[in-house]
């Protein structure tokens, strides 16, 4: 079974994250860049499926040159090869533009049975990309998976959202996005780290994928960020002196906030 995992490099959630003033895109220099945690889980799931069903795991990444670090991490976890789409024209692409490029990039991998992705990146938090890629590829989309099982040419997924748990089934090939509960990703071993160096990474520009520069980037995106403001610092809490009526005051406050 050949699996493609869509991975993204994001600013480390442990570091301070900033937006560039000029165009409201991510200031990539301001934070350490890492493979998104949710993508680590997607890679882990692919590796576990590969362990049972065989085949190859390919990671596909759209991102600037330094995203090679995130790709290396996925390869050191055990993925077999990678496709990296890097092009200056992609700067500022929105979800749809990115999905177009990703779908084309997935198309360069032969005999794909399954496309795995995280359900939502920790930076942009759009959460729509896997469904968009599925739409563009004409494949079923099974999102928010907390469990994935492949049986022959069908895949069964437990989809968990705020509404509840749904039991889904689709025929392969399909696109699946995973949530935080899917698994605990492995840490790469030194053997894996050294092996990753020798694994093939094909680096493509959008021209290689037949994508026109006008369809992507800030200019080609359907959505635009018109304004951005940093989160206001957390306001100091409200202090309640307990003069015997502390409980009542706390309850009144919670009622005022419509919390109880």
């Amino acid at each position: 079974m050949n699996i493609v995992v869509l991975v993204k490099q994001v600013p480390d959630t442990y570091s301070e994250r900033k937006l560039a003033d000029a165009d409201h895109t991510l200031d990539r220099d301001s934070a350490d860049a890492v493979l998104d945690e949710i993508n680590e889980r997607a890679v882990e799931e692919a590796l576990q499926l590969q362990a049972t069903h065989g085949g190859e795991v390919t990671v596909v990444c759209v991102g600037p040159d330094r995203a090679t670090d995130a790709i290396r991490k996925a390869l050191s976890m055990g993925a077999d090869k990678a496709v990296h789409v890097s092009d200056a024209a992609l700067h500022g692409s929105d979800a749809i533009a990115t999905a177009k490029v990703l779908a084309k990039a997935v198309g360069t991998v032969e005999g794909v049975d399954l496309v795995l992705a995280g359900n939502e990146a920790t930076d942009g938090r759009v959460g729509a990309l896997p469904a968009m890629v599925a739409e563009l590829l004409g494949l079923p989309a099974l999102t928010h998976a907390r469990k994935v099982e492949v049986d022959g040419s069908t895949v069964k997924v437990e989809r968990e959202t705020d509404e509840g748990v749904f039991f889904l089934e689709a025929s392969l090939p399909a696109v699946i996005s995973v949530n935080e509960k899917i698994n605990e990703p492995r840490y790469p071993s030194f053997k894996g780290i050294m092996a990753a160096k020798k694994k093939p990474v094909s680096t493509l520009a959008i021209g290689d994928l037949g994508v026109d520069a006008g369809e992507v980037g800030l200019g080609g995106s359907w959505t635009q960020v018109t304004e951005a403001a940093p989160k206001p610092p957390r306001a100091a809490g409200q202090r309640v002196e307990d003069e015997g009526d502390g409980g009542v005051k706390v309850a009144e406050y919670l009622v005022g906030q419509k919390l109880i």
Partner: protein
Amino acid sequence: MVDFRISEEHEALRKTVEQFAREEVAPVIGDFYEREEFPYEIVAKMGQMGLFGLPYPEEHGGMGGDYFALCLALEELARVDSSVAVTLEAGVSLGSMPIYRFGTREQQERWLPQLCAGTALAGFGLTEPGGGSDAGATRTTARLDGDEWVINGSKCFITNSGTDITQAVTVTAVTGQTPEGRKEISSIIVPSGTPGFTVSRKYSKVGWNASDTHELSFSDCRVPAANLLGERGRGYAQFLRILDEGRIAIAALGVGLAQGCVDECLRYVQEREAFGHKIGTYQAIQFKIADMEARVHTARLAYYQAAALMLRGEPFKKESAIAKLVSSNAAMDNSREATQIFGGYGFMNEYPVGRFYRDAKILEIGEGTSEVQRMLIARHLGL
């Protein structure tokens, strides 16, 4: 020219262990420490990551890395906690390394796969109740009786000797006399559970409280003659080699602890206020942290260089002694200053710096005391 840049792979490993320590060790280790409990789950995860196999070739179940890779992993673990770091340090440099360096093919095949996987641990018993620094004065004896060694004596302070997953302890024992009339010392592998081999209750320690340390006794303990590690009479030379390289690993551990103090303080002084200002704005505090950083930096260069010499196959005894001396000093000084910077909170067990303070002291004692390091350095200067 000298070049202290580390390779991309080593850097990737360092980052991986840094992430592991932050995510898997930091949140839970304080509780293990309080309960003086060995953290089996963490050790199992370290095993899955291949940390116990770092310096060994793949044919033995290792990761195909080198001793420097092990040192980097130790430094990153010790930045967060020294108990898990020393469990790895002793597991590799005292547990599996003697078998890898001096063992027969059969001994390697029997022990290394599970030791490299971290599913089993082994210890090295050199120190005795009567003395550790003068390790040549060993009183434990082993007598060959037919095709068995009969061991009598006791060992103390032996790391990783009594966990549920400990499978063996290699012990040094007097096996006869040399032609010059000196003690002939040999190393023998004693599997855990061998009749006559008793592991006493674990010690109550000042630090390293989530690590495993026991006193061991041997009373007519019989093991096959084939358990002799390497050649008879080579025990002294073997443990000198093991300790020389082990010092680089302990130095890495000390650097990690000293770095952990800097990390913790940098965060704290930018939050804590006194007299209306963040304490990090006071020069007295800044200078303490600057000195702490300078100590970590020098100690790190010292162990990098000692490791580089060792890996190039050049003499490294003096440099490893210096690295250990400088690094344990840095750990002591930094943890004292860090505790001071944290004020009363520094004295509370729930903050890592208090744990660092308690864990630092042993670094001036284990694997050769600071006095022993100075003796070694002085000897290399011809004194």
